[in-house]
Each structure stands twice: as structure tokens, then as C-alpha cells.
């Protein structure tokens, strides 16, 4: 995919999108659909497309395109649409500051330091991986300890193997995918250790990335020591009790030269903090209304910056809405303000968006706190929907039609997931 070099950077755009991954691309397309004229999408990498380029495995796009694509295929389809829509794409560029009146400061490989103005902004910076520091693994500080996503970039794009004998901590999908990927490259993957009593990744990945290659998954187990002066020479693993405390009397040593961490993602909200956006302490992302607008006027957000998704298809769906709303904002077609606040109740960790209006159909995304089978999702007493199961690792999405809200006159609506 050719990302053309942007020769002329205008001082003002209708819509500026910070981040050119799946969220940014769908937002750009949405802004174009809803009438924004000058649109700029900015990405810090050499090419737009985001993390999808390195996710070379297949399984993307089933909801959105109705077929299973690899990450690069998904990225390329979107990027082609973005370019066909005549959206300015500026790569190799950081947005390092933003003001409440939507002035953005950029640091660009090709354009230097610049300030541009935006009629509306869409925040689509995504998330980054948690690192060793986030969970404070004791031990030495040798090289050879890296996040699974970084190893993925090394292997799939740069053609470098991270090591020869690998232990993976965390059973998130990226870690499982890398267990298979490294095995296919001839690297020895000694095992995956998961501190929780259940695996975090999809069953599909447990089967096709671990079982297929006889890679052991040890639950309720964690790394309690990393050894090595220059390079990792080994780790110590130990089982944990129900309070996740390691039992050192049953610890054992494993010789390895590499540790991969697949221990979760954190939304990248440095820019959101520059303008003091209201953040949701549960998602660590901005609070958004039903148009994906944040607490700052004309500043929208979507994708992993708002809440960590498990499927890119839903990122695209949510981001399309954010982009359309940004288009509406700059063309003066804003829908009526929201009048209902969603309150997470029993077994609901959070809901996005945080508010709804009674005049339109909405898709509400939410995550539960604990698994439940044969349950009902209840929005106050206006809507109830039976589902076969809910799992914390799988985002739930539910469509709320205006007819449900017609006769609802309160200003808060409690959302519960309850056993039938």
C-alpha cells in the first residue's frame, strides 16, 4: 500500500484525526460521509494502518466484511477507501499537544514543528501494551524481556527473531498468537503462564496456537524471578493461591533466553489529559456521549483510546460513528443532546457510550465483571434481552431502539446483567 507523501499541509482542516489505525481510518471515512471537506489523518508510524500490519494471522473482519481476513488485508481495504476518499494522510508525525479550542501541535518528520487548527478533532490513538514495570516482576534487568506485540513487529515486519527459547507470561490473544508464530519460525516456546485460574484468550487461539503445537498452558502460575546479567538466562515460575500470591516453596526454574509479556493494554490518553477530558476510571478512556463526543466540545474519541476492544470490527463500527459525528459537528448538523445517563449496575463493569438520547437508535458496548450463563441484560425496565452467556473477555454489544426509550422520562438508566 502506497501512503503518498503529503506535500502540502494546510493550516486548517475541518476534521483532524489523531491516529491512523483501524479507528482513525474508519473515523476519516465517516467524516467524509457526513460532509466534512478538508480531512487530515495523522499517524506516528511510517505508514497508516496501525497495529493491523503486524497482525498477519487471519480471523479479522468476520462481522464487518463477512469473511475472514488477515490484519494486513483488513488494513489495506480500509486504507484504500481512505485514499479514494481524498483524505490527507500525514505519517511519521506526532500530535504532541492539543488545546481546548482545537489547535494541534505536530512534530513531523517531513514538515517539522507545526500548529494546525481543526473544526473537530477525533482522538484515535489506540492503546499500548503493559510492560514489565506495570506488574513489577522481580529479578535482574537483562535484555530479552519484551511485550508480545513488540516481538510480533520484530518477527513479522522486521524479520528479526527475539530469541531461541521463549517463556510467555499472560494468556492474552497476542501472547497466544506469538506462541504459534514463533513456533512456525523454529523458535522453542516452552510454555505460557497465566496468573488467573482461566485463560484470557479466545478458545480458538488456545486450540490453534497452543494445542496444535503441544505448547503447555499453566494456569494460576506466574514468573517470580528473571535471571541474567546481559541477557535473560532463565526465569523462576511459581503457582499462585486464590489471592494470586505465589507459593515460593513450589517454585521451579526454567532455562530460557526470552520472556514475552502479554498482560493487557492501556488506552493511550496523554492527549486527552492535555485538555482535561473527563475520563472513566474503569475504562481509563474518555467519557463519551452517544455521538462519541468527549467532555470537550468538538473533540470526539473512538476505538481503544476509549475502551480496549477485543475485535477490530467493533472498533471500525464505533469509529465510523465518531467520524460521522465529527462531520455533523463541522457542518452544523448536530443531533439533539443526550438526556439519559447509563449507570453500570449488577455485573456490568462499564458501558460505552456513557449517555444516550431518546430520538435515535444506539449501540451500547459493555463489559461484564464475571462470567454468567443463561442471563438477561436489562436496561432499567424498558429493555431486556436474553443472552446465552457473557464473559469478561468478550465485549457485549446491544442495540437500543428509540421505541424502548419513548416512554422513558427519567434521566438515568441502570444496566444490569442478571441470572435467569
Amino acid at each position, binding site marked *: 500500500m502506497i501512503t503518498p507523501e503529503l506535500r502540502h499541509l494546510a493550516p486548517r482542516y475541518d476534521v483532524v484525526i489523531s491516529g491512523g489505525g483501524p479507528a482513525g481510518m474508519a473515523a476519516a471515512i465517516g467524516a467524509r460521509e457526513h460532509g466534512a471537506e478538508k480531512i487530515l489523518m495523522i499517524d506516528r508510524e511510517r505508514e497508516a494502518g496501525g497495529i493491523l500490519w503486524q497482525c498477519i*494471522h*487471519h480471523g479479522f473482519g468476520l462481522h464487518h466484511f463477512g469473511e475472514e481476513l*488477515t490484519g494486513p488485508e483488513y488494513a489495506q481495504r480500509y486504507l484504500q477507501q481512505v485514499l479514494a476518499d481524498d483524505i490527507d494522510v500525514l505519517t511519521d508525525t506526532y500530535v504532541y499537544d492539543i488545546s481546548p479550542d482545537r489547535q494541534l501541535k505536530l512534530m513531523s518528520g517531513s514538515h517539522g514543528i507545526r500548529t494546525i487548527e481543526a473544526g473537530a478533532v477525533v482522538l484515535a490513538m489506540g492503546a499500548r501494551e503493559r510492560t514489565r514495570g506495570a506488574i513489577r516482576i522481580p529479578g535482574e534487568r537483562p535484555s530479552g524481556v519484551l511485550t508480545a506485540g513488540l516481538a510480533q513487529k520484530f518477527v*513479522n515486519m522486521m*524479520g*528479526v527473531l527475539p530469541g531461541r527459547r521463549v517463556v510467555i507470561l499472560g494468556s492474552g490473544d497476542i501472547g497466544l498468537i506469538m506462541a504459534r508464530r514463533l513456533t*512456525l519460525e523454529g523458535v522453542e516456546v516452552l510454555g505460557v503462564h497465566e496468573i488467573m485460574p482461566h485463560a484470557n484468550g479466545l478458545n480458538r487461539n488456545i486450540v*490453534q496456537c497452543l494445542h496444535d503445537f503441544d505448547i503447555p498452558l499453566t494456569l494460576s502460575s506466574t514468573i517470580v524471578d528473571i535471571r541474567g546479567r546481559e541477557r535473560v538466562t532463565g526465569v523462576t515460575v511459581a503457582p499462585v493461591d486464590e489471592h494470586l500470591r505465589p507459593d515460593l516453596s513450589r517454585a521451579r526454574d526454567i532455562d530460557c533466553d526470552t520472556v514475552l509479556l502479554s498482560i493487557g493494554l492501556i488506552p493511550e490518553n496523554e492527549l486527552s489529559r492535555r485538555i482535561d477530558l473527563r475520563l472513566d476510571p474503569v475504562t481509563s478512556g474518555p467519557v463519551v456521549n452517544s455521538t462519541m463526543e468527549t467532555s470537550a466540545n468538538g473533540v470526539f474519541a473512538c476505538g481503544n483510546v476509549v475502551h480496549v476492544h477485543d475485535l477490530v470490527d467493533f472498533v471500525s463500527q464505533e469509529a465510523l460513528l465518531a467520524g460521522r459525528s465529527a462531520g455533523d459537528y463541522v457542518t452544523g448538523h448536530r443531533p439533539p443532546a443526550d438526556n439519559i445517563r447509563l449507570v453500570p449496575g449488577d455485573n456490568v463493569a462499564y458501558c460505552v457510550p456513557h449517555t444516550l438520547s431518546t430520538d435515535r437508535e444506539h449501540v451500547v458496548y459493555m463489559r461484564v465483571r464475571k462470567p454468567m450463563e443463561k442471563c438477561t441484560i436489562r436496561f432499567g425496565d424498558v429493555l431486556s434481552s436474553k443472552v*446465552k452467556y457473557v464473559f469478561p*473477555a468478550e465485549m457485549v454489544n446491544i442495540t437500543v431502539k428509540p421505541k424502548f426509550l419513548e416512554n422513558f422520562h427519567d434521566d438515568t438508566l441502570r444496566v444490569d446483567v442478571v441470572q435467569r
Partner: protein
Amino acid sequence: MSADNITHYLCIGCPLGCRLEVEDNGAGDVVEVRGWGCKTGKAYGRQEHTDPRRVVATSVRIRGGRWARVPVKTSGAVPKALVCEVARAVRGVEVEAPIAIGTVVLANVLDTGVDIVTTRDMERA
């Protein structure tokens, strides 16, 4: 019914992850699939027992490209038993930039009738 004729599978159809039990008549024919929670699992157990297949995705060397590797995949699913061999066969492939998405870089890999194709465009650096 002897235990030798029973194989266990984890259904990948949904997060419930039903533990499937497939009973075989010893000649590779499925007698019964048990343990499923829905039809998807029943069909999956049968397929996985008689003819498990996988799409293989990997990457190959590219000369003169923006990145050192270009991603590829099998154009269709290959028998599970061949996954590692397919990956090994692909490791020797090297291509030249620019290259377009869908380009065949290795035809009919291991006589499976399946091609190895690129999954993105890559321009010259």
C-alpha cells in the same frame, strides 16, 4: 465402547468452550460427538476429528521493501498435520519489492493445491 476410541476436543465456536468427546469406530469414522452445547460444536467435533484444517499465515523476505518481511498466507486451509511443513517450505522464499496483495509467491505448496499469497502491497523503500 473402549476409551481408545474417544478423543477430546475443545470447541472453539464460542467462549463457553464445550469439551467435546468424539467416539470413533477405529477406522476413522465418527460414531458419535458428545458434550456439545449447540449444533456448531457437533459439526466442529466431526470436522476436527476427521479432517482438521488450518490457514497458515507467515511472512517472507522481501528485497528493497519498506519492511524486511512481507506477510503471506495459504490461499485456503491446509491439513493441520502439514502446518509446520508448510511454514518451513515458505521460509526459503524471497521476493522483490514492489509487490501487490494477492501475488502468488509459492504455487501449490507441498502439492496441497493451495498457493502462498501476499496479504498486502509493499512498495519499494
